């Protein structure tokens, strides 16, 4: 066994070496004085952190998300310099387009909230949207799109300070900085059992057991499975989302462009490729398994949406499609903090497809919380016990701006 003080004991074991787990490890290690181990079943960037579209936006419908993402965007803007790694960040803004009056009204309400938070988002006339993206077809969209894909936009809003990044280097950056501060990261090591022994947890892996004073489950869409090992239950569910990448093109597209009604989003990375996805009907998933296969139906749906939005893209070639899980909670908001009934077992999940962009700021507050400081209000708003025994979602402050 591995009593305290030996090499198989850690003060904190983090399960999941995605951006959230690594960022928490880094922030906690910066505070010093702890032995921290991060375990992951796969390699770095295998999960959702390596599969997302790299969007970093501040346009949200709840004040909590707007303010957190303002802070996170600033952290992203300084990441390359602080970590000494290129994250290919480009601040071209986010342009949202709406087809219906109802969506336009929602955007206006969101813009007013964002302006109160000092974010420079504006409702802009469609002709200004076309100035931003000359390839954009804002009218009925006769060319390229099949029936039902007509654009017919009625409103647009734009925030110039939103950004895109290339996700993978964030993982290398956090991992390297954490390791330099003494964190042990072990990949290819699945946790197969978590048991309570006295004040500690015993974690079983094929590479041996280790004990931990505290466990942080940062396993994203796989969190319910990890929580079950410790005897806990989580109400979030994995939802497959697909994404594609095209051949690289000369830079032409400044903002990330997103259509509210279809959930379509597309941006051009600094590598030149177009990266984007679109909402698909949620599949029945009674067993709660994470599914990562690719479907032709996604390719054709996305291609129709893109060709309707920017008819000139018809001859651009798709080179790759893949899938990743959105980790969706019953009310669309994350689940954070100590799991009720399991003192010392912490979760950070349910980010619904925006965990990557939130990780820099959430991890920073999470480290302070684990260090015993007065918790940030997110630990009250997103606490794990808010769903109650029946899992009934609280309706207040539901985030509307979940895209893709």
């Amino acid at each position, binding site marked *: 066994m591995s009593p305290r003080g030996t090499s198989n004991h850690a003060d904190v074991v983090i399960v999941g070496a995605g951006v959230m787990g690594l960022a928490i490890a880094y922030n906690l290690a910066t505070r010093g004085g702890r032995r921290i181990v991060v375990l992951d079943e796969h390699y770095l960037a295998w999960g959702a952190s390596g599969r997302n579209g790299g969007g970093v936006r501040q346009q949200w419908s709840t004040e909590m998300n707007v303010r957190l993402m303002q802070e996170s965007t600033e952290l992203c803007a300084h990441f390359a310099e602080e970590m000494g790694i290129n994250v290919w960040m480009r601040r071209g803004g986010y342009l949202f387009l709406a087809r219906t009056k109802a969506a336009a009204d929602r955007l206006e309400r969101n813009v007013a909230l964002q302006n109160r938070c000092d974010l420079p988002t504006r409702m802009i006339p469609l002709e200004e949207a076309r100035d931003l993206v000359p390839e954009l077809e804002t009218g009925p969209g006769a060319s390229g799109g099949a029936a039902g894909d007509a654009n017919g936009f009625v409103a647009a809003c734009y925030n110039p300070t939103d950004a895109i990044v290339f996700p993978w280097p964030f993982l290398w950056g956090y991992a390297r900085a954490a390791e330099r501060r003494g964190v042990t990261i072990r990949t290819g090591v699945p946790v197969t059992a978590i048991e309570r022994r006295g004040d500690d947890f015993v974690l079983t892996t094929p590479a041996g057991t280790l004990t931990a004073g505290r466990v942080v489950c940062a396993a994203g869409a796989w969190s319910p499975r990890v929580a079950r090992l410790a005897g806990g239950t989580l109400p979030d569910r994995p939802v497959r989302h697909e994404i594609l990448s095209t*051949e690289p093109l000369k830079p032409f597209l400044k903002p990330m462009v997103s259509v509210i009604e279809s959930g379509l989003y597309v941006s051009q990375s600094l590598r030149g490729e177009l990266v984007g996805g679109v909402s698909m009907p949620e599949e029945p998933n009674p067993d709660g398994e994470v599914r990562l296969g690719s479907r032709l139906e996604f*390719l*054709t749906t996305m291609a129709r949406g893109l060709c309707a939005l920017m008819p000139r893209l018809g001859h651009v*070639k*798709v*080179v*790759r499609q893949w899938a990743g899980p959105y980790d969706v909670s019953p009310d669309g908001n994350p689940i954070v903090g100590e799991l009720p009934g399991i003192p010392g077992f912490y979760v950070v999940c349910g980010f619904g497809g925006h965990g990557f962009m939130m990780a820099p700021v959430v991890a920073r507050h999470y480290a302070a919380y684990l260090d015993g400081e007065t918790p940030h209000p997110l630990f009250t708003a997103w606490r794990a016990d808010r769903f109650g025994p029946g899992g009934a979602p609280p309706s207040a402050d539901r985030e509307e701006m979940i895209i893709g």
Partner: protein
Amino acid sequence: MSRKVILCRCEDVTLADVQHAVKLGRGDLEEVKRYTGFGTGPCQGKECLREVARAVAEATGSDPAALSPFTARPPLVPVELGVLAAGGRRPASPTRK
């Protein structure tokens, strides 16, 4: 003459890049792909996978045959958005050139 050896021509990944990735502990092709970006360009690894695998095997001292290729992603060959939008049929009015 430059001593730079390009293994992945789409993404300009060199032999030294691959050796550096291995030195940092990334000994499997999925990890090397993510660390260097090799195989993520228009050829999707069709030209470079074998060369990179050989370089990784040499750098790690392992048997090249024991290395698994990275997951192949659809489509098998690059396909125009217009073709996909037409449901896999050729678009009605091609306007190229």
